[in-house]
């Protein structure tokens, strides 16, 4: 266990890094905060207040490590309904009440509430929220503000709006629409461009910078007014003094009404679901693999929501996209959340008047993209591969949410799921008789591994008992889950168990699921079966030109070639490069017979949700025959100097000044690394092309650009690797 002193030292050491990460997150949080608040028809500053209050309170009292809190996407729909039915001040009261309920839930240890919702229903609900956001903001993005009754009506009006845009006569509106389309293009294409300087500033901030620049260009150089119609600019943002003096006083008049409490329930429900899903997803990204204290976090979020409500802000939730940006930029503890809040305060202090130069249509483009990501067709396709019945659940939740409301939607999803389960098993009794039974048995076997046996059935209704048992096992252990006494296992359980498998695997343990084939063999339980199917899709026979060329290269270098996708890339997991990245699969593998060298194309993703970037690149892996220290070697550039400022240390050699200047070398054990980098090795690096080179003690990973390499580049890569290995073996 770490001592208190060393943890303090570690905290101080990582402080600059967290400050840097907090800065980057605040850059994305500012435009998102403004946008989310405006989409919910609250004053734009409300979103920023939410992020500030959330960042400060949750960073101090929360139980998670690398999450960022602020205004959430999911809540837009609910807050919108609340504001239209209750009015703004009563909505603040509802927000305060939902915060209090969250605190109570935290104390009652009901953070697990979200486990009781089937995953397809949650997917459906999130998709519906996405469509609500997209449907409403799409019109504003194109400079065509309209008012409709329900979410569906807004969606149906989209074609009309597109037609209207081409008939615009008003120049102000045309410019507004252009700003919107351009911003949407930035959001879409940003993740496709891999440039480390461009990527330093998140896409939403680029939109802000470009639109503020555009406005200044007109004002200072063309000396004319901003051509975008004033209706489509962000309304005046009060400065900090006005914000403080004009804190809205909550209005308790509506407390007796039903609509007030249904708003409170919806706010609480969505806030807790969104937070819990995000915390779970962010925990998976955490480099240090820590486990968040969910109930403590819920309490902190609840308190933050109460304070935020009193100050004129919205519900504070844990947000996935911003948290993933935090992890990717080196955030390692809660201080980055605090810094994100402090930077936001700074922005409001310094630039609150500049923010009115941002066109509303540009801001709404960010939200349209967010909405699209929530309801993307990819999600529907994925659900379809799991099973058609999941689509029924998904769409019944989605449609009811759009037509009636969030709570009805989620209830519809629950009912649909239960009915489908009953139909599939042809038995209501199985569920009713056994729902309250403690159906999970866990014990430690003599060899130290854990055995879990599940009886009767396991579905979203009682997954919690299984979850509690899984949570109580230290993740470095081996676990066997036996479903053979189970009559039915549903998709939500399979998905969650899969997540636990991933988690245990990351921390050095292993979960094995047995007994499902029994279910399959009787062909009574298609849920479990279908879940197991889609993984290794065999590549079609018709190879691409590149693949044909690769097999020629394989012959030339005397290697074997395998184009098929593989999902197990365990040998890559210890590399620092992949700590914050999720490997999807490797393919087009060239392998030496004794498997010392292997080059492959790899698909991995970085970040989550709107900050998600899928990258395909080519790498070379060399298994070294002797023990070498772990290190990372990069070309030294502006970014690396910046990193060095933020607390990453560069190991320099006095005797090789040229090498030290041109290369950025780091690792845990500088002494060992210095001893390993002999003059011969240094000369080798100096006289050869730059590559990103990383060692994990057992192997070396070499890659260049973050894209698939050409045949010529692969040859170069192989040649470089072979020669490097020789040099290493000689030293």
């Amino acid at each position, binding site marked *: 266990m770490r001592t208190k002193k060393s943890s303090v030292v570690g905290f101080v050491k990582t402080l600059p890094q967290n400050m840097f990460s907090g800065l980057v997150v605040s850059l994305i949080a500012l435009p998102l905060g403004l946008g989310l608040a405006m989409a919910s028809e609250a004053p734009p500053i409300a979103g920023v207040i939410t992020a500030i209050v959330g960042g400060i309170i949750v960073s101090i009292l929360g*139980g998670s490590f690398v999450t960022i809190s602020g205004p959430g996407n999911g809540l837009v729909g609910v807050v919108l309904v609340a504001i239209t039915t209750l009015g703004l001040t009563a909505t603040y009261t509802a927000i305060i009440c939902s915060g209090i309920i969250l605190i109570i839930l935290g104390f009652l*240890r009901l953070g697990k509430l979200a486990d009781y919702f089937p995953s397809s229903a949650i997917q459906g609900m999130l998709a519906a929220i996405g469509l609500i956001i997209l449907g409403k903001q799409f019109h504003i993005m194109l400079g065509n503000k309209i008012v409709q009754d329900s979410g569906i009506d807004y969606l149906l009006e989209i074609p009309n709006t597109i037609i209207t845009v081409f008939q615009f006569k008003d120049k102000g509106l045309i410019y507004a629409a252009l700003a919107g389309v351009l911003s949407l293009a930035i959001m879409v294409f940003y993740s496709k461009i891999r440039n480390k300087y461009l990527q330093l500033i998140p896409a939403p901030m680029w939109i802000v910078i470009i639109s503020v620049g555009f406005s200044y260009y007109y004002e200072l150089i063309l000396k004319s007014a901003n051509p975008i119609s004033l209706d489509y600019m962000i309304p005046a943002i009060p400065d900090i003094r006005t914000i403080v003096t004009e804190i809205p006083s909550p209005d308790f008049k509506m407390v007796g009404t039903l609509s007030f409490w249904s708003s409170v329930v919806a706010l609480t429900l969505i806030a807790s679901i969104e937070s819990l899903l995000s915390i779970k997803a962010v925990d998976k990204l955490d480099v240090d693999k*820590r*486990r*968040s*204290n*969910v*109930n*403590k976090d819920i309490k902190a979020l609840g308190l933050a929501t109460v304070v935020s409500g009193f100050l004129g802000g919205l519900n504070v939730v844990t947000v996935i996209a911003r948290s993933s940006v935090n992890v990717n930029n080196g955030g390692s503890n809660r201080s980055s959340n605090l810094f994100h809040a402090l930077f936001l305060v700074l922005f409001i202090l310094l630039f609150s008047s500049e923010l009115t130069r941002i066109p509303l249509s540009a801001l709404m483009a960010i939200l349209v993209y967010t909405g699209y990501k929530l309801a993307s067709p990819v999600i529907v396709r994925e659900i379809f591969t799991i099973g058609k019945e999941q689509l029924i659940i998904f769409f019944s939740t989605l449609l009811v949410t759009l037509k009636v409301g969030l709570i009805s939607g989620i209830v519809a999803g629950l009912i649909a799921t239960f009915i489908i389960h009953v139909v599939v098993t042809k038995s209501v009794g199985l569920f009713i008789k056994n729902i309250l*039974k*403690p*159906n*999970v*048995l*866990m*014990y*430690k076997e*003599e060899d130290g591994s854990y*055995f879990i*046996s599940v*009886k009767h059935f396991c579905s979203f209704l009682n997954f919690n008992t299984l979850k*509690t048992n899984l*949570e*109580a096992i*230290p993740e470095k252990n081996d676990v066997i889950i*036996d479903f053979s*006494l189970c009559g039915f296992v549903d998709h939500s359980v399979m998905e969650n168990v899969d997540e636990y498998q991933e988690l245990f695997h990351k921390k050095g343990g292993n979960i094995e699921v047995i007994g499902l084939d029994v279910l399959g063999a009787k062909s009574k339980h298609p849920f479990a079966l279908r879940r197991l199917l889609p993984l290794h899709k065999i590549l079609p026979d018709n190879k691409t030109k590149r693949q044909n060329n690769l097999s020629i290269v394989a012959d030339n270098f005397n290697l074997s070639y395998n184009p098929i996708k593989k999902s197990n890339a365990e040998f890559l997991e210890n590399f620092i490069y992949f700590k914050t990245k999720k490997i999807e699969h490797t393919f087009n593998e060239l392998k030496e017979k004794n498997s010392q060298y292997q080059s492959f194309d790899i698909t991995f993703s970085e970040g989550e949700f709107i900050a998600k970037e899928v990258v395909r690149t080519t790498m070379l892996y060399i298994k070294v025959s002797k023990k070498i220290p772990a290190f990372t070697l990069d070309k030294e550039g502006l970014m690396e100097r910046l990193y060095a400022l933020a607390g990453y240390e560069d190991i320099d050699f006095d005797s090789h000044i040229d090498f030290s200047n041109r290369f950025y070398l780091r690792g845990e054990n500088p002494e060992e690394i210095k001893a390993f980098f002999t003059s011969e090795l240094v000369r080798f690096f100096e006289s050869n092309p730059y590559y990103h080179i990383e060692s994990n003690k057992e192997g070396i990973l070499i890659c260049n650009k973050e894209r698939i390499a050409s045949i010529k580049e692969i040859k170069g890569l192989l040649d470089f690797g072979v020669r490097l290995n020789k040099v290493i073996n000689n030293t």
Partner: protein
Amino acid sequence: MRTIAFKTIGIGVAFSPNLEANINEAARLALFFGSRLVLIHVGESSEEKLNKFLGFLNPFKDLGLDFEVTFKSGDPVEVILSTTNEKKVDLLIIGALKKENFVKYYLGSIARKITRKATCSILLLINPSKERVSCNHIVVNGLKDPKTEETVATAFFVGHKLGANKITVVEEISDEEVSVKVDDDKSLRKSTIVKERLRLREEMRVKTILSTIPGELTKNIKIKSQPIFGKRGYSIGHYAQVARADLLVMNAPSKMTFWDRLFPHDIEHILTELPTDVLIVQ
């Protein structure tokens, strides 16, 4: 400690398809334990009935079985319980019913009532058969309870007599005893330590109980002690099922109130989902 023996074994018999299997099982057990067998039939006595019973019993008579058949009309529960007392039956055998899908077993309402009210030990048979099926693995509870010592001793007695080769003593540790709730890494470490400590404590306790068992009973039997964390009474049944035990030996419940039936616990769980043959030691 009193010497453990079943002097008289009782079984309620009715004319069901299982009749022969039930009688065979009871007679075999009586021979193994060297006990007298009392057949209790609820109903009027008649020559025809008696002949039928005797027909099944005669093969065992040659092996030296001492038996008696009683007839008495009335309420089945009352009759069986009163006859058990009269005849000083100390082990009552009850056959369970199979569910349609042939996987699950349950007790009929009469059998349940008898089980709750009986003052002697009870053996619930889920799968009576005409031929002998060997009993290899016995699971016995190791609860912290004054009755446990005798229950464990009985398990060894039965195991010895039936030639079992493995006995597992299961200590059920309820979640309430693990006072630490798992929230994060720190509390997980703490709860793991607490559990380990409880495990050691329980194993020590079981060891002391085992040391009181006479050596002749433990001969040739592999002994295992297995702590499990879970709901008392329920988890042990689940364990017996997972471990493919042939017989589960349990303490008789201390008292049964109305509430116990409404919120089933301990033995009641076992009665609703018979995992295997169950011996309840009074």
